[in-house]
C-alpha cells in the first residue's frame, strides 16, 4: 500500500490540482453555498434600495470634487475631500482646511467617537481630533503616531485606531499613549496598513499584502488571516480564506466581518470564509476600494459603482459613461428545486444617477445613503 501511494504520488497531486482548477472555474460543489447565498445572519428586513440621487460638487459648495470618505454624524454629514473637510448641515456646506487648524487638507478617513462625539480625521499628513470646533493634531513628529499617511481611523470605545503607511496605531485617549503595530511586533507582511475596523471586542486591520490582522482587545493577542492561495489573483480554492492578501478595508457588523480587496470581497462569520466576485454575485467590480457594513447590509465601494448586499440580494448603483443617468441593478439569488443556483436581475433606470462610478467612501442611516466619488458626493434617499 505504501509503495502504491509512493508510486502514484505525482498522479494524485496532479489530480488534486486539476480538481482545484475545476472548482475555481465555477463548478461549485453541491454542498457549498453559491456566492449569492451567503451566511450572514438572516434578517427579515428587505434589502434597502436608494434612489432620488442628489449630487454635490464644487458648484454646490464642496471644496473639491475628489471626495475620499463620508461619515454621517447625527444631523450633519462629514465629507473628506482632496481639499479639506466638508460639513453638510442645514442644507449648507462648510469647509475646514489647514487654515482652520486641520492637520492636512487631504482628508481620507473620518470617524466619530460614540463615547464623546469627537470627530477623528485621518489625512495624508497626520491625524486631527475635531472637538468643540477645535482641531488638535497628531503627527509622526509630535506624537507616537506611526506615520502621517493615515488611510483609516476608527474609534473603539476610548481607543482610536489608525491604519497608516508605517503600521497600525492604537491611541488610548485616557492614558494618551500610542502603540504601534508593524511587521516587527505583529503578524504583518509589511508595515503598510490600509484599513481598520472594530467589532465584538476585536480590531481587524487590513494589512497590505498581509491579509487581515485580528487583534483581541482583552488578550492583546494577534491572529492573521491570509489567502491560502498566496498572492495569486485567482481564487484557486473557493471560500478557503480571504480572497486575497492585498486588503483595502475591513468592516464588522452583525457578527460578520467583511473584507475588501482589489480582487474581490470576503466575508467571515468567525468560522467560515466566503468569497464574492463580480462573476458570481451582484458585485459591480472586483476592484474594491472600501467596504462598510451597517447592520445586515454591507456597502461595497468599487471602481465600477456601488454595490450592497444583505446576503440574499444585491443592489448595485451605476452611472452611465456618457450622461448623468444610470441604473440600479437588483439581483436576487435563490435555488431551484434541484438545488441549482438561479438569480433574477432587475434594472431600474435612475435619473440622475450617482455622481461617478469610482467610489471610495460610503455611509448610510435610516433615511439616506451618502457616497464619496471621484467626481462629487452623492446622496440617495431610501425608497419605501
Amino acid at each position: 500500500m505504501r509503495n502504491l501511494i509512493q508510486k502514484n504520488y505525482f498522479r494524485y497531486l496532479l489530480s488534486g490540482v486539476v480538481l482545484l482548477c475545476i472548482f475555481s472555474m465555477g463548478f461549485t460543489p453541491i454542498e457549498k453555498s453559491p456566492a449569492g447565498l451567503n451566511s450572514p445572519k438572516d434578517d427579515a428586513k428587505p434589502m434597502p434600495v436608494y434612489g432620488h440621487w442628489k449630487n454635490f460638487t464644487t458648484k454646490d459648495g464642496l471644496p473639491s470634487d475628489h471626495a475620499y470618505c463620508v461619515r454621517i454624524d447625527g444631523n450633519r454629514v462629514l465629507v473628506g475631500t482632496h481639499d479639506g473637510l466638508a460639513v453638510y448641515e442645514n442644507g449648507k456646506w462648510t469647509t475646514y482646511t489647514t487654515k482652520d487648524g486641520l492637520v492636512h487638507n487631504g482628508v481620507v478617513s473620518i470617524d466619530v467617537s460614540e463615547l464623546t462625539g469627537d470627530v477623528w480625521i485621518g489625512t495624508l499628513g497626520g491625524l486631527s481630533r475635531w472637538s468643540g470646533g477645535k482641531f488638535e493634531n497628531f503627527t509622526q513628529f509630535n506624537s507616537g503616531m506611526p506615520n502621517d499617511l493615515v488611510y483609516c481611523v476608527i474609534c473603539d470605545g476610548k481607543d482610536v485606531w489608525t491604519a497608516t503607511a508605517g503600521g497600525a496605531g492604537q491611541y488610548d485617549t485616557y492614558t494618551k499613549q500610542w502603540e504601534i503595530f508593524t511587521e516587527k511586533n505583529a503578524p504583518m507582511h509589511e508595515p503598510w496598513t490600509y484599513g481598520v475596523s472594530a467589532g465584538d471586542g476585536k480590531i481587524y486591520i487590513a494589512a497590505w499584502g498581509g491579509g487581515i490582522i485580528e487583534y483581541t482587545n482583552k488578550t492583546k493577542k494577534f491572529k492573521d488571516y491570509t489567502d491560502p492561495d498566496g498572492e495569486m489573483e485567482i481564487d484557486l480554492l473557493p471560500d478557503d480564506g480571504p480572497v486575497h492578501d492585498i486588503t483595502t478595508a475591513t468592516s464588522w457588523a452583525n457578527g460578520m466581518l467583511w473584507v475588501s480587496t482589489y480582487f474581490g470581497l470576503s466575508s467571515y462569520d468567525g468560522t467560515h470564509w466566503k468569497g464574492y466576485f463580480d462573476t458570481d454575485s451582484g458585485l459591480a467590480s472586483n476592484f474594491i476600494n472600501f467596504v462598510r457594513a451597517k447592520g445586515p447590509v454591507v456597502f461595497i465601494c468599487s471602481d465600477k459603482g456601488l454595490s450592497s448586499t444583505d446576503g440574499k440580494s444585491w443592489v448595485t448603483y451605476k452611472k452611465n459613461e456618457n450622461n448623468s443617468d444610470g441604473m440600479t441593478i437588483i439581483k436576487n439569488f435563490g435555488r431551484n428545486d434541484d438545488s441549482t443556483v438561479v438569480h433574477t436581475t432587475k434594472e431600474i433606470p435612475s435619473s440622475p444617477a450617482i455622481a461617478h462610478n469610482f467610489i471610495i467612501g460610503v455611509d448610510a442611516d435610516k433615511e439616506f445613503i451618502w457616497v464619496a466619488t471621484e467626481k462629487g458626493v452623492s446622496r440617495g434617499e431610501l425608497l419605501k
Partner: protein
Amino acid sequence: MLIIVVLGLIIYFPGRKLARAHVNSKTGVEDHPLMCTSCHIPLSKNKLIVKLINSDYYSPFNLAVSKDGGRLYVVAQEGNALLVVDPENHKVLNKIKVGKYPYGVVLDEAGKIAYVSNQWSDDVSVIDLVTEKVSDTLKTGNGPAGLSLSADGKYLYVVNSFSSDISVIDLKNREEHKRFSAGNNPTGAELSPDGKTLYVTSRRALIAPYGDTLKSELTVVDESTERVIARRNIESAYLIENVAFTPTGDLAIMTMIRPKNLIPSIQVEQGWMMTYGITIIEQKEKGRVIQLLLDEPNAYYSDPYDIVITPDGKKAFISHSGVNCISVVDIDSVRTLLKESSPEILNKWSNNLGISSRYVIKRIPTGANPKGLALSPDGKLLYVAEQLEDRIAVINTVSLETINTISLGGPRRITVARQGRRLFNNSGHTFQNQFDCYTCHPDMHEDGLVYNMASKDMGRNLTNTQSLRDIRDTPPYKWNGKNQTVYKQDGIRFSTVLTRSEQFSYEDLDALTAYILTGIHYPPNLMYNPTGELTGSQLRGKEIFERTKDNSGNVIPENNRCITCHTPPYYTNLKLASVGTLAATDDSIKFDTPHLNNIFASPPYLHDGRAATLEEIWTIYGKEDKHGLANDMNKNQLNDLVEYLKSLRAPEYENIPSKIKHTSL
C-alpha cells in the same frame, strides 16, 4: 586659661575666615550673617531635626457650605482630610480622612453626600455626611481637581488636572461613564444656572510656538448631548483657575492672569510682567469675551484664584492669593461698562490698569494666601480658606468687613519653611506687587511659558520656566547653570533682574531657601508609572536610554548616551552640556543638564520651549544627533524611549533614600 583663650583665638579667627568664605560662596554676597543654624538647621536631613523644626499644617484649600449654612466642609490639602466646621461656634467638629492631597469638594443637592477630589491619588472620596465617614472611593483620571454635579445629580464631573480631561462618573453604578479631553491643566468647573452647560477652565496655555498669542482653553460641555460643544480660546491669558456664573446666567466670569512673557522681562518697572483680572463671557449668541483687570496703576493684585457671586447677582468676590486680599466687584458696574463700550474700547480696557476703579468697590484684607471661597446660602457671609494661615475668614458681604476668623486647629507656630512658603506665595517683595514665585511656578512647578529674559546686554534669551520640585540635590540652577545655590538664585541678583525691588532680607532669604529646598515635592506619577513596574514599552525604552551601542552595533561615544548626562536618581549629572539647541539670539552658553523626574508634566521642552512634545526633541530638533544619538532609531524605538521618559518619577517613589520628606510645611 590663657592657653584656652589662645587656642580659642587660633581656632576662632581661621575658623571664622573659613566660615565666611563658605557662606560667601554659597550666597554670592559678603555680608550674609555668619549664623550656621540659619541654614544648616532648616536644611538638615537628620530625621529628628526635621521632625523638631517642622509642623504638620492643614492648609485649607477649598470649601463648601451646607444648605442650611450650619456646616462648613473644608478641604485640608496637606492634612489629607475634609474638616467639618461649625461656623457659628468656630469649632472643628470632625476631621474625615480622605485621599492624598485633596483639592475640591462639592455637596449633593440633598446635602447628604460630599465628594472630595484627591489630586494625588486619582480618586474621589464619597463621604456620607450623616455618618461623616467615607462610604466609597471613585476612580478618576490623573490629578482630579474641580468637581461639579450634573443638574439631575446623576453624574459627577471630575476635572483631571494632570491628564487634562474630564471624567464623567455615573453615580448610579459608580463608574466612569466617559471622558472628555479638556484644555491644558484644567481645574475649575461650574455648571450654568440653567443646568445645561458645564464650563471647565484651564490653567496652562495651549502649547504654541514662542511669539504666538497665548490661548487658554475654556471647555464647554453640553449636558443633553453629552458632548463638548465648544472649546473657546481665552486669548493672552492663563492660570484661569475658577469660573462662576451670575444667578441670571447672563455672564460667566473667571479669574485669569495676563502674562507679558513676549516682552523683555526688564519691562517690570513699566508694569509689563503680569497683569491680573477677570475674563467675562456674555452668555448669549455671539456673546463677547471681555477681559478686565483688577489691578491699579501702581498696585497689582496677583494670583487671583477663586470667584463667587452673591445670590442677588450684585457682587463678585475674588481671592488674590499673592496679595492676601479679596477684591469686591460691583457686577452692575461691569454690565454698564460692557454696555457702553465698543469692542475696540473693551480691547483697550483689557490692558488698562485704571479701569478697575469703575467696578472694584473694595479690597478686603485676609490672612496669608487666600484660596477657595464659599458663600452662605443667604449670601450674607463669605468664607475664605486662608491656606497658609490654617484658618477660615468670615466676611460680611454687606459691610464688606471681616467679622471673624475660624482657626482650624493647626500648629500655632510658623516654622522657618512655612515662612518661606508664605514668602514664595506673596508678591510683597516685587515692584508694585507684580508677581511672586508662585505666579510663574504654580504648584511650585512651572507655568509652561517661555519668557524673554533679556540679559544685561539686552540680548534675547528665551527661557522655558523650570520646575522647582525636588531641586535640592540638582544644583546648579538656571538653564545656564550660573547659580550654584538657591541663595544666589533668589538673592540680590534676583531683585536686580526680576523683582526690581528691595532684595529679601537674609532672614527671609534663608526661610525661602529652606522652603524651596525641603518643602516642594513631586506628585506621584500615577499616569505613567503608578506602581514602579514598567510596561513592556517602557522597559524597552529603558534599554535604549541605557544603551552603549547603536542599532548597527557601533559603540556610541560616552558623551552621546542618554544615561551619561541624565544619570539617576534625578537623571542629571549636574554638569553643563551643549546639545546643539543654542539659538542665534541666545548668549553663548552651555546648558545645565535638566533633571527628568516627572518630565511628562513639563512641556514644552528644551531651554526655549521649542519642542512641544518629548518626541519633537528628536524628530525635529535632534537631527544632528547632538542631543544623544537618536537618528538610528525607528519609530517604535523612539516611542519606547519616550514612554520610558514619561515613566520617570521622583526618587522618593523609588525607595531611594535621597532625602527626608516632610509632608507638610
